[in-house]
């Protein structure tokens, strides 16, 4: 431990990834950081919650050379990262040298392994003299698939925070950390793959949110890269594989549908009283799920798409259509079931399987046939 044994007085700590290395997919960085923190939460009562905005106990960033603290990095090799003992401001923060080549393998510098070491500092551990301990200061190649926390590390961290509350983690055992669920996925969805389809798409506070299984991408139209998150990292109670989503910007609310239920969220908060059943919106009882939806602020209408038909809710008269209309009648060129739809500037974008159709509501026709991943830097 450090002189004076600084440690966190609380057991639930927050962390925030401030920026990403271009060496890895954002999702791979997220997974490596999450797994590195789980190394310590497995053997202590500590829990880690990720934040995407505001302050956090452990602020994580990538930088090269001088980076606003008193310890500039030294280019490739040498010092690869550093972190600060528990405390306010810089306390707990972890900095990674962007001049390293960050990887998730034994090549280059393995991000998970270095991050697990640095978070040891963030929690109050000093360097170990034991060459097999994680807190040994010199970087060594290791098998990333099975990671073994050494007893010396466990002794140190449990001296500060006590053992894990779940009994099966026997302190004498070295703790093996299997790849966390996220990186166990046979394949994380790849937006640049030829077959990418989306479950739902919506605008979201000036960005566009693309939902797929248990993840979503956030993409600002003017920014090249997209941020990739677990749905549960934003809304822990929301199920994966949503059906539809739309935003009502003037209320700063986004409505998300799954099966015969829907939730209303504001930022990363689910508003109280949700989920509610979708028939409360005015659908006939035989409607059990919707495929897609979007809100047209100019008209004051929300359109809900189900198979080859759609329902419209008029905000002004506060009434839902008595019966659905055919999609192709109101949106010529859009035939059959759609996966997702959103409005961007003066156009509607319909996602049908691997196609995306840009629709001009003024000309009442499809103006462009686009790839599904048109919005991504592929």
């Amino acid at each position, binding site marked *: 431990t*450090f*002189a004076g044994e600084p440690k966190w007085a609380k057991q639930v700590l927050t962390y925030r990834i401030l920026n990403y290395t271009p060496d890895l997919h954002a999702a791979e960085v997220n997974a490596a950081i999450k797994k590195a923190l789980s190394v310590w939460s497995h053997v202590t009562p500590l829990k880690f919650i990720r934040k995407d905005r505001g302050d956090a106990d452990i602020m994580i960033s990538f930088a090269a050379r001088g980076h606003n603290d008193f*310890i500039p*990095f030294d280019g490739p*090799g*040498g*010092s*690869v*990262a*550093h*972190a600060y003992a528990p405390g306010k401001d810089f306390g707990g923060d972890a*900095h990674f*040298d962007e001049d*390293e080549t960050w990887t998730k393998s034994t090549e280059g*510098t393995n991000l998970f392994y*270095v991050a697990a*070491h*640095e978070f040891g*500092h963030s929690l109050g551990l*000093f*360097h170990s*003299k034991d*060459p097999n301990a994680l807190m040994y*200061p*010199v*970087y060594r190649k290791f098998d990333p698939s099975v990671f073994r926390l050494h007893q010396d590390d466990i002794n140190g961290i449990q001296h500060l925070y006590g053992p894990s509350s779940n009994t099966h983690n026997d302190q004498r055992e070295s703790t093996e950390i299997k790849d966390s669920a996220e990186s166990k996925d046979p394949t994380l969805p790849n937006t640049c793959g030829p077959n990418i389809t989306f479950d739902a798409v919506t605008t979201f506070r000036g960005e566009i949110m693309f939902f797929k299984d248990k993840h979503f991408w956030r993409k600002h139209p003017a920014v090249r890269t997209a941020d990739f998150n677990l749905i549960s990292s934003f809304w822990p109670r929301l199920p994966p594989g949503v059906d539809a989503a739309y935003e009502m910007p003037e209320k700063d609310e986004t409505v998300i549908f799954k099966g015969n239920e829907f939730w209303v969220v504001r930022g990363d908060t689910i508003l109280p009283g949700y989920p509610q059943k979708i028939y409360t919106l005015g659908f006939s009882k035989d409607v059990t799920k919707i495929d897609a939806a979007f809100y047209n602020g100019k008209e004051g209408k929300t359109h809900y798409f189900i198979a080859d038909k759609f329902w419209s809710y008029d905000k002004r008269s506060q009434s839902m259509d008595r019966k659905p209309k055919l999609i192709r009648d109101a949106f010529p060129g859009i035939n059959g079931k759609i996966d997702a739809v959103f409005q961007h500037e003066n156009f509607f974008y319909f996602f049908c399987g691997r196609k995306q159709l840009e629709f001009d509501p003024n000309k009442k026709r499809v103006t462009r046939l686009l790839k599904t991943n048109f919005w991504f830097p592929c």
Partner: protein
Amino acid sequence: FPADTRQNKEEGMQLIQKYLENYYGFKKDGESFIWKSNSLMTQKIKEMQKFFGLEVTGKLDSGTLDLVQKRRCGFPDVAGFS
């Protein structure tokens, strides 16, 4: 010494000095110091060799030089860092 050996020696000395400054709180006293009489440097090398379980010679031997070139955590190995 042939030029390249002397140069290697100087490079090695700069490496170890930088390493001890970064991770062992070594402070160079004055602008120039005479290697042999600099007991602080020798003491710091011994401290580092002891930490890493190397033979404690106080000299810049190959094992020590090899270690200072490895990637590592940027945090010092000696307490008292604030």
